[in-house]
């Protein structure tokens, strides 16, 4: 069984979700190849080799994302594969259906578990139900980001096979006109190993500095509950939950967040959960591995100092 995986990258670096997708591919079968499109495709191939891929089909010299062109390149490279795997990213969700249509394959989206090569688990109805589905025929999979392990780095190298791309009629209809770098140099939520999130308990926007300072000390990303996104204190791109981002970092620290079911839907798969809340009855404590019952304005400054100290002695 031949398995293709789209190695989504940006400026020569694989995104985390693509590394997870490599792990999923390897758990389904051994005959796996990657598909890379990047302006620095050599770096991507090198990284993929270290993550255990032996073959990467590569389209070089493409400097900007174009959904139809990417779909065409990936279709041409993957059309003979039995399973084509995409990371659960904006690009992955945009391209995979187009490749699926071209292959006339069976789509299985947003999987959270591989049962076998054609059986997968998915999360439905805002994570209230988990379903097991069986698919027939060639399969195009997207993998929910943040759930699967990244393969360990080895010293392998991947062979490169060239794939070509040509411009097609219709490509000029649409263009990616501008990429605005994110406003901060913080890690992105869905890429992060550690996330510090703030909720309504922080009170005012200026108090969010406590969240940011702890995140800085931990090299973490910053998240937020919907309550403070709706209040305009934080951008929607930081919202964690059912209508925000789905995250599953190694460590999730929820500060002044009550733990409404819609928030939990987005973070309850995190490996270790820390909650800081002054209300002993807050639902977040039901899932917290470390539930700190206390006033965040007293606990956070001390925690920031303690993390600083712990890092120094490490």
């Amino acid at each position, binding site marked *: 069984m031949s398995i293709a995986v789209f190695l989504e990258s940006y400026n020569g670096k694989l995104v985390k979700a693509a590394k997870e997708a490599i792990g999923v591919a390897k758990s389904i079968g051994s005959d796996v190849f990657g598909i890379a499109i990047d302006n620095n495709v050599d770096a991507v191939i090198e990284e993929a080799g270290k993550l255990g891929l032996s073959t990467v089909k590569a389209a070089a010299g493409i400097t900007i994302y174009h959904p*139809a062109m990417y779909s065409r390149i990936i279709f041409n490279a993957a059309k003979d594969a039995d399973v084509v795997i995409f990371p659960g990213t904006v690009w992955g969700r945009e391209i995979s259906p187009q490749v699926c249509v071209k292959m006339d394959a069976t789509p299985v989206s947003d999987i959270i578990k591989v049962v076998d090569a054609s059986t997968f688990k998915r999360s439905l109805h805002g994570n*209230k139900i988990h379903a097991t589905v069986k698919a027939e025929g060639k399969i195009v999979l997207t993998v929910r980001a943040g759930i699967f392990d990244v393969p360990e780095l080895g010293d392998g190298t991947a062979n490169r096979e060239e794939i070509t791309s040509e411009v097609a009629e219709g490509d000029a209809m649409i263009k990616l006109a501008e990429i605005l770098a994110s406003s901060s140099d913080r890690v992105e939520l869905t890429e992060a190993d550690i996330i510090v999130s703030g909720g309504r308990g922080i009170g005012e926007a200026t108090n969010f500095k406590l969240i940011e300072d702890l995140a800085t000390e931990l090299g973490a990303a910053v998240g937020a509950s919907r309550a403070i996104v709706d209040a305009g204190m934080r951008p929607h791109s930081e919202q964690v939950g059912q209508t925000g981002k789905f995250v599953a970092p190694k460590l999730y620290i929820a500060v002044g967040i009550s733990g409404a079911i819609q928030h939990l839907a987005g973070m309850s798969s995190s490996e270790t959960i820390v909650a800081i809340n002054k209300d002993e009855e807050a639902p977040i404590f039901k899932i917290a591995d470390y539930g700190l019952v206390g006033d965040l304005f007293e606990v956070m400054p001390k925690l920031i100092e303690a993390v600083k100290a712990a890092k120094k002695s490490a």
Partner: protein
Amino acid sequence: MKVVTLLKVTPDTETKFQINSAGTDIAEDSSIEYIIGPYDEYGVEAAIQIKEKLGGEVISVTIGSGNEEKSIRKAMAMGVDSGILINNADLKSSDPLSIAKAIKEVVEPLNADIIICGKLATDTSDSFIGPALAALMNIPVISEISSLEVTEEGVVATRDAAGRKERFESKFPVILTADKGLNEPRYPKLPMIMKAKKKPLDKKDTAGTEIRKNVTQVKAEFPATKSAGKKITGTPDELVSELVTGLTTKEKIL
């Protein structure tokens, strides 16, 4: 401007779901409220705003299985002019590619300038239909947009992709999928609710396309709940010290 908005009517995720006796899916019982999902509401609002700015009409298209009319009337009360409803339970439960092909069959003859759908439907969260429809119709798609500007020339839309903001420009026709942040969907007002009852809704029982069931749901279960949490009480210093010790020695994160 002719705008088509795709509406999927789905069980409210607030429902306290039960699992059916076969253990394969949620039980279809009367406690389920069927609604237009949040992302489709952003799509409806965007469509109406385009019409308000540039004139034209908004048509909704739904593949359903009998629970849809109330929600479609709600979209009409928001400002959708007319609707098409294909009522076919077999089609609705087929695989997403069959649904995309059926939607194409219905939408293509409408010659819309813009087709808007949700980033995902909250029941199955496939995030499939919009980009798939683009490939089937061979037109561009901009997915998961959180801002939109439409002129006679085309659209400019932005989205948040892995921490970057991407700004796309496209000519017509184009497919857009709506993310949160795009707008604030309006509440229907009473006169509009009355008017909506009389707006044309074209009901059919087939799109005339092949129905393929390449995906079978064999099991449905409630997600395993995380084992009961552990509360730590004490002075702020005690709390912090217990946490930091745990994170360094037990979890080995620090």
